[in-house]
């Protein structure tokens, strides 16, 4: 170090020591006044709407319109979360129409805990449920929803959904999807048996014209299981079906 720089350094440090030796009590600089604006707005409310599946489904016997949407409003930790999905048989009644209103809380880096209410407008008679579940990203990047439902009649059931995005290219994405429903008690009026009710395996191939807008084609295979399958047979319904899908995935 050069001599003049060294002297400057000594003088500078000496100044600091002199002032700090003057008093035992360090003095704080006043904090910014409360009435000043926030430096950053790090608690924004974000609104997200995801139409995950809006599709036309056709198999040997019936055509159906299927919807599955969810969304949320809120901040990083707490959100209002809603979900709806349903099946509308072309030329017939709505087979299923389900609505959920949930409070969601981030409980782990990749998981939210959800709790709230579910209302099934169809099939009739309508039913209401208490809901608790988790939703998030499981290891190996599976999108997972695991939810338990308790109906107003005390019937307990559960649902597991999982999907995975396989990037064929940056925009062409193959998505396998798995869903199964489980019931702890029988609800004969609705054709629900005890145990695993059904299993569904889908494969969708979407093209993201934009991230927010992706038409897709796909195939779906569903099978009723156990007593639920027996109820279906007794009603003269198919227990197994395979369908082609044409649909749209969009979000905002």
């Amino acid at each position, binding site marked *: *170090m*050069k001599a003049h*720089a060294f002297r*400057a*350094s000594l003088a*500078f*440090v000496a100044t*600091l*020591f002199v*002032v*700090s030796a*003057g*008093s035992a*009590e*360090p*003095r*704080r*600089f006043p*904090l*910014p006044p409360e*009435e*000043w*604006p*926030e*430096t*950053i*707005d*790090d*608690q*924004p409310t*974000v609104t*997200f709407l995801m139409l995950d599946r809006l599709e036309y489904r056709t198999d040997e016997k019936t055509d159906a319109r299927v919807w599955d949407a969810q969304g949320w409003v809120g901040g*990083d*930790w707490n959100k209002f979360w809603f979900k709806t999905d349903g099946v509308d048989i072309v030329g017939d009644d709505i087979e299923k129409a389900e609505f959920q209103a949930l409070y969601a809380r*981030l*409980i*782990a*880096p*990749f*998981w939210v805990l959800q709790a709230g209410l579910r209302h099934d407008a169809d099939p009739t008679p309508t039913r209401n449920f208490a809901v608790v579940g988790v939703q998030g*990203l*499981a*290891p*190996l*990047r599976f999108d997972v929803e695991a939810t338990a439902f308790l109906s107003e009649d005390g019937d307990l059931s559960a649902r597991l959904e999982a999907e995975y995005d*396989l*990037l*064929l*290219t*940056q*925009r062409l994405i193959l998505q396998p999807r798995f869903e199964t429903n489980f019931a702890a008690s029988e609800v004969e009026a609705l054709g629900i048996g005890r145990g695993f009710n059904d299993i569904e395996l889908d494969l969708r191939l979407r093209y993201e014209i*934009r*991230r927010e807008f992706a038409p897709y084609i796909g195939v779906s295979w569903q099978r009723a299981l156990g007593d639920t399958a027996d109820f279906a047979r007794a009603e003269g319904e198919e227990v197994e079906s395979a369908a082609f899908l044409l649909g749209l995935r969009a*979000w905002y």
Partner: protein
Amino acid sequence: MDQTGNSDNRGLTRRRLLQAMAALGLLGGWRSVVPAYARDSGGTHALRVTDGGVDLVIARTPIDIGGRVGSALTINGTVPGPLLRFREGEWATLRVTNRLDEMTALHWHGLRVPQDMDGVAGLSFPGIGPGETFTYRFRPRQNGTYWYHSHQGLQQQSGQYAPLIIDPAASDPVEYDREYVVFLSDWTFEDPDAVFGKLKKQSDYYNFQQRTMGDFLRDVERYGLRATLRDRAMWGRMRMSPADIADVTGYTYTFLLNGLPSQSNWIGLFRPGERVRLRFINGAASTFFNVRIPGLPLTVVQADGQNVRPVTVDEFQIAVAETYDVIVQPHEERAYTLFAESMDRSGYARGTLAPRMGMSAPVPALRERPLRTMVDMGMDMDMGEADGMAMPGMASAPQPGMAMGEEGMPPAEEGVMSGMGRDREAMAGGEHSGPMPGMEQAGPIAGRHGPDTHGPANASVAAVQRNRLGERGAGLDTVPHRVLVYSDLNALEPNRDLRPPAREIELHLTGNMETFMWGFDGKKFSEVKEPIFIDYGERVRITLVNDTMMEHPMHLHGMFKEIVNGADPAHRPRKHTISVKPAERMSFDITADAPGNWAFHCHLLYHMEVGMLRLVNVGLPPQRERP
């Protein structure tokens, strides 16, 4: 970089803007939106800031970027704003008028000004309201290349930034015949709030360089099925993407050099044999650039406004908010391309140095985008993951001169702090480097993570933390030429305070890419009640541990950081901004000689805005006791 997306609303926006501009009589005046210094030789068109003052007006202005009209926030009508020239030691007055319908603020990046002149709304002053004029007055006690920008919301993304030079009071140790400002930035035609919203909803929205099935098949061919599956499983278990290099990419960004897109080709003139000083400033909101001028060695003479011992390289990485002054000496009567490639290789800014206007040189092709590595993950190489397999995505070409223990590797720090468990075992690159290709470049292990994983706002921790100041930036580990690293930097003028730090403050840089939450120690700004209190005159070491998988350009207001980079303490480089690499543990010392409330934050605009900011409160000098 051509625009590839968001074409759906282009026509509407353009038409509406044209109508508005016609109404305002602005048509035909587009050229004025590029500042004078950007059109030709810089330095001569600066606004000289004196005590008499200059006037700066913040307004919303339509600008033409590559033939497309965008709506910018401008300083005196241009993007970037006017080059300000100060004289060291002389008083300067700046009257800043806000013609927006929202609050604004101008911050003098890297300038040690009184805290109430620092220009951070909410910390140093209440901001500049619509229609108001705020007068900044200060006396620069430093010299060099700096910049200034909005420190309010996402305004900086819309073009509210500009260069700033303080000419030295004494003679300049850097000799040059000619100088140019090279101001790099990233422009989007999207509303920055929309960009922000997309990142919150799908954080990899802008990444169109993900690994696909094609990459999988290629890796199987190259490394075998087993190694490839293990690699995918490892990343999958972490629920992260090795292709996550940048949050916002060339999908929406047009990269600008002095406000011009690559096709507009900014030209700086020279006479062969001249020493040309290029003052590089990265004023981007979210983009790191790798900079080179094929055919010309770059002699770095200044970093963040502070002179350094000259070091000659062929390429350097400039993090967001950094500046580097570089001397080049073109001898040939030909054009040279000034190439600033975005770190994720999704685009580039480009200009030309040439003896005459209208010339150009070949523009290099974009290189393949880099991938994050196991070192970036902070993974423990002893844990059995790395037992001799070839890893896709790991740099594989041997690096001349970059092996551990050779040039450029900083020695282990003095370790004045107790209880930090500094681990020097890996200094020789021995046991931890193992057989992993590319591992020989990893810096020595500097620490290991404790049991606190920082809660749901943090997705991973750096189990193994390394000193990475001697490592090249992402994507440059295998380029076959000289690349600047932080351990190359030595301050030219020695540091004044050589006391060892009496206290160490450790902060972890944390984040959750899935929810796009960023902060310190798992908390965002609004969740932290206490500032970081430092007494006046205190000498403090701040140690940063990056638990995330991205670089964070950390910027401290009010005081220079003396980077503990292996240089002797008197010549540790003074920086206002330093990029902390993934899984890095690094330290800097500060002397708390600037009373006030100072911001310490990640300068990636979107990271700061979601909470990656802390308040540092430096106390007042103690009152002298009366005798």
